[in-house]
Each structure stands twice: as structure tokens, then as C-alpha cells.
């Protein structure tokens, strides 16, 4: 078990991170234009000093090595566009906001998704099934940047139930969380339904039926446990989606999260901020995938042998 985890970390997680950091570093540096080239013209002397201060005057490869050595200690350097702040500080400040939003959204998605899957699978190929699955399909087909404004239009501007934007009170958090969670309700509902239909034909379900258990109890207590495996392994990709999805939601609702910082950094060519966020996002996604893989293997006895 421990060997499996260590192998994952040393042969997959760490190499992936190095590759990602390297690609991003050179991609940004090879692109035309620099961080100081866009706004009002700066005198050559100041530019030289700025370049010297940020180490941009050294050879590209030296810069690369310095950078790689620094990010090992989570030191992403100073931000180019927020003078006096380090990237690590900015991430530490804004990520908890994104995390909170993501956790709410995921909770909404898991609860409603599993519920929808149960309802649909309890009577396959019926009107109930089609209706539930079609509605939850809406989450996939109506993008967040459509759903968000529409929810604001209806609940904030017309009905006046929730504030339009911001992140100060609890009522601020409801619309963004729903918007972000909607996307995953559909996926989780489909996975739950598929998993349930697969388990419902297994022998142990027949045994449960033969014991005379009511159908609802079989569905919830016996079938659901086996059916949730695909849902569990979906949580890895879902975490990735929640991160990228939060760019839009944070922009729409003006939430001071990391997603908004990243989009702003990309537009401002804030080198260190972009690098920092990309490496940080990659770190989170890869760790999450590793954790989910280990969990899936632990839960599923058939995969457990691959752990040794």
C-alpha cells in the first residue's frame, strides 16, 4: 500500500509537475512581448533596472534553473503587477475563497446528482427516468456563463431574493455555488444511474430481493454502495473542472478568488503570477487525482491486489 502510494508520487506526480512547470515557463518566455512592454513607455534605464530586479537580464536557462529551485519551497517570487506582494501571498489569500466555493458546489452536485440518479434508476426507461436525466442534462448543456447571468437575472434582479454579486454574507454564496455545482449534477446523476443499473442485475441483489426486502431498501442500502464507485473516481476530474469552472463564476459574481486573479494575471502578462497559479493548479489537480486513485483502490476489493 505504502509502496503503491510512493511509486505514484515519485514516478507520476513529481515528473508531471516538473514537465508542466517547464512547458509553462518556456511557453510564456517564448511568446512575443514582455511584462513591461504593454503600458506607458518606460525609460531604458528603468527598464534595465526592472529587468535586473526580477532577474530577467540573465540567460533564459539560468532563470529557469533559479525558478525551478525556488518553487520547490513554494516560493513563487514577487508579483509583477502587484508591487510589493509575493505570488505566494496572493495565492494564500485568494485560494481559500475558491476552495470554499468549490466545496459548496461539489456538495450540491453530489447530493442532487446521487438523488437524481436514484430517482432515474428506480424505474429505468420510464417517463420519470427520461425526465430526470433530461433535466440534469441541462447542467452539461447550459454553460456556467449562461446559467450564472440567467440566475442573477431571475433571482436577483427580478425577484430580489439574493444580492447580485460580492462575497461577504451567506446569501452571497448561494447563487455562485448553484451555478458551479449544476455542471456536475448531470455527470454524477448519469454515473449513479449507470452504476445502479449495472449493480441491480448482480446476484447479491437477487438474494436481497429473495429475502423479501422492499425495493427502496435494496436500492439504497445494497445497490448504491457498489454503484458509487464510478462517482468516486469521477471526483478527480471533477475537481479539475471545478477549478477551471470557477474562473467564470468568480468573474460573473465578482468573487475575490484565485480564478479571477489568474484571468487578470494572464491579461496583464504577470509572468510570476501565471507561473505560480499554473503550478499551483497542477499541483492540486494531480494530488487530487492521486488521492482519488488510492481511495478507489481501497474501496474496490477487485483493484486492491494491484496495490501490492
Amino acid at each position, binding site marked *: 500500500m505504502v509502496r503503491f502510494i510512493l511509486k505514484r508520487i515519485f514516478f*507520476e506526480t513529481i*515528473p*508531471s509537475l516538473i*514537465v*508542466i512547470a517547464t*512547458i*509553462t515557463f518556456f*511557453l*510564456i518566455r517564448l*511568446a*512575443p*512581448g514582455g511584462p513591461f512592454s504593454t503600458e506607458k513607455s518606460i525609460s531604458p534605464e528603468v527598464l534595465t533596472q526592472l529587468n535586473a530586479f526580477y532577474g530577467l537580464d540573465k540567460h533564459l536557462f539560468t532563470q529557469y534553473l533559479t525558478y525551478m529551485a525556488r518553487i520547490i519551497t513554494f516560493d513563487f517570487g514577487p508579483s509583477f503587477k502587484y508591487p510589493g506582494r509575493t505570488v505566494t501571498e496572493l495565492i494564500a489569500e485568494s485560494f481559500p475563497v475558491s476552495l470554499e466555493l468549490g466545496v459548496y458546489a461539489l456538495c450540491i452536485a453530489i447530493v442532487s446528482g446521487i438523488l437524481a440518479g436514484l430517482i432515474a434508476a428506480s424505474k*429505468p*426507461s420510464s417517463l420519470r427516468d*427520461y425526465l430526470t436525466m*433530461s433535466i440534469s*442534462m*441541462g447542467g*452539461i*448543456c*447550459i*454553460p456556467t*456563463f*449562461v446559467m450564472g*447571468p*440567467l440566475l*442573477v*437575472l431571475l433571482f436577483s*434582479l427580478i425577484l430580489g431574493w439574493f444580492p447580485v454579486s460580492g462575497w461577504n454574507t451567506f446569501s452571497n454564496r448561494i447563487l455562485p455555488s448553484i451555478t458551479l455545482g449544476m455542471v456536475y449534477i448531470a455527470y454524477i446523476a448519469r454515473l449513479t444511474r449507470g452504476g445502479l443499473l449495472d449493480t441491480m442485475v448482480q446476484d447479491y441483489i437477487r438474494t436481497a430481493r429473495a429475502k423479501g426486502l422492499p425495493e427502496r431498501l435494496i436500492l439504497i442500502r445494497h445497490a448504491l454502495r457498489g454503484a458509487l464507485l464510478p462517482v468516486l473516481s469521477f471526483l478527480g476530474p471533477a475537481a*479539475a473542472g471545478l*477549478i*477551471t469552472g470557477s*474562473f*467564470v463564476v468568480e*468573474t*460573473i459574481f465578482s468573487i475575490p478568488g484565485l480564478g479571477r486573479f*489568474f*484571468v487578470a494575471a*494572464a*491579461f496583464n*502578462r504577470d509572468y510570476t503570477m*501565471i507561473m505560480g*497559479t*499554473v503550478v499551483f*493548479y*497542477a499541483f492540486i*489537480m*494531480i494530488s487530487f*487525482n492521486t488521492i482519488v486513485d488510492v481511495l478507489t483502490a481501497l474501496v474496490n476489493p477487485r483493484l486492491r491486489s494491484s496495490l501490492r
Partner: protein
Amino acid sequence: MKKNGTYSRGTSLMRDALRRFVRNRLSVTGCIVLLFIITLCLAAPLLTPYTYDYQNLSSGATPPGAQHLLGTDILGRDLFTRILYGGRVSFAVGLCATLVSVLIGVAWGAIAGWYGGKTDTIMMRFVDIAYAFPFTIFVIILMVFFERSLLLLFIAIGAVEWLTMARIVRGQVMALRHQEFVDAAIGLGLRQHQILLRHILPNIIGPVIVYATLTIPAIMLLEAFLSYLGLGVQPPSSSWGILIREGTESMETYPWLLIFPAVVLSLTLFSLNFIGDGLRDALDPRSSRE
């Protein structure tokens, strides 16, 4: 599958699949809606007297009516016209980028699956690492740092979406590699690329079509997302993402500017997803509902 226990004469895989597909009401509805929208977009010059960038400030922000079917935006541009021309761009991006991703994905997966061994390990490890890469972020960086053009958009999106295709194709090819008809082909002395092209690829066309159909809506969504951020198609060109962004900015006063583009985009995505699901049920009976 076969209902009365007999294979009727001349039922090919494709005809069989078509029969199953037509029986699925949701996907047929999806097909009709999609064809309707595509026809409207293609026939745009015949249907409206305006061009997508024709401005008439004196009739700015007119609500839907006889003169302008879906109203106009703040600059007096006809929304119906802009939706149709935007649709052309969105569909073009969806189809071209899907084509790019299918070509890369099939070639990559087929080579990895066919040769196996070290080749396979290296190629698939690359895919694994690429999977962990936050790709939306990658596309955003590309679009910000390089000159924005439709071509770059195709390449960036296509380069992102081929990974899953490669995995699917590799799995299929590996399963087929040791089948008897492949042994027969080898025994006949066919070259490797001949076997791959003539014997293996035709056998995996089903899953490829299904996954490609499901890739189109994903790509159209990504394009709309990039355009919404201001990184995709550039104004005054029109695309559904741009229209939705413009609509969001003025939704309090002119809600139709948000609602119509949003409805058209969502309808298209719904149709494409239903068609994809229908095709999966039709072409891959193992995973169908029954």
C-alpha cells in the same frame, strides 16, 4: 439487438445501427433541431437584409419586433443576423477542431495500441501527464500571449481534446490486435500500415464516431467560453460566446440580448449531446439501455 432471434438478410452493422438510432426519439428530435439551426446559419444571407457588422445607431436596442425579428443591440446591430453569422463561426470551430482532435487522437492511439511495448508505454505516459495539465489554463495562456486568430483557436482546442480519443482508440486497437482476422492478415503478408488502415481502423469506427460527436459540443462550449472571456473570436466578428458576453453586460435593461443567444447555444448543445448518446446506444449495443 435482434428481437425475434433471427438475423434478417442483409442487415449490415450500419443499417442495424441506423434502425436503433431512428427508434430513439430524443436523438431524432436532436437531429431535427440541429439541422434546423445549421440550415438557418448557412442560409443567413438569404434570410436577413443586414450584415453581421451593420450598425444603425438610431435604432439601437430595439426590442424584438417586425423590423428586427430578435431586436437589436446597443449599436443597432440586428441580433438575429448576428446569431446566424455567429453560429457559422461556432459550428466551424466545433467541426474543424474536432477533426484536428480526431486525426491526432486516432493516429496516436492506433500506433500506441498496435506496437505496444515500450512505444506504448512512452506514448501513453505522455497522455497521462498531459491529462494532469490544466488545459483550459494552457489555452488561455496561448490565446493571451500569441496573436489571436481563428487558426490558433482551432489548433489550441484541437490539441487539447485529442487525449481521450487516443485512450479510447488504443484500448480498441489492443483488443483487436490478437483477433484471428489480424493473424490472417499478417499470415497473408500484408504490411503493418496496410493492416492498420484496412483491417483495424474500419473496426473501431463506431466508438470514434460516437466520441467525435460528443467532442463537438465540448469544443463549441470551450470556444464560447474563450470568446466570453474575450480570448476567442474577436469583435466585430460574431460568435455565440461574444453575443452572450455582450448580452450579460446589458441584461438588466435589454434582457433579450442575453436570452436569445443563450437559448440557441443551449439548444445546440442539447441536440448534439442527445445525438451523441443516441449514436452510442446505436453503435455500441453493449452499453445501450436494454
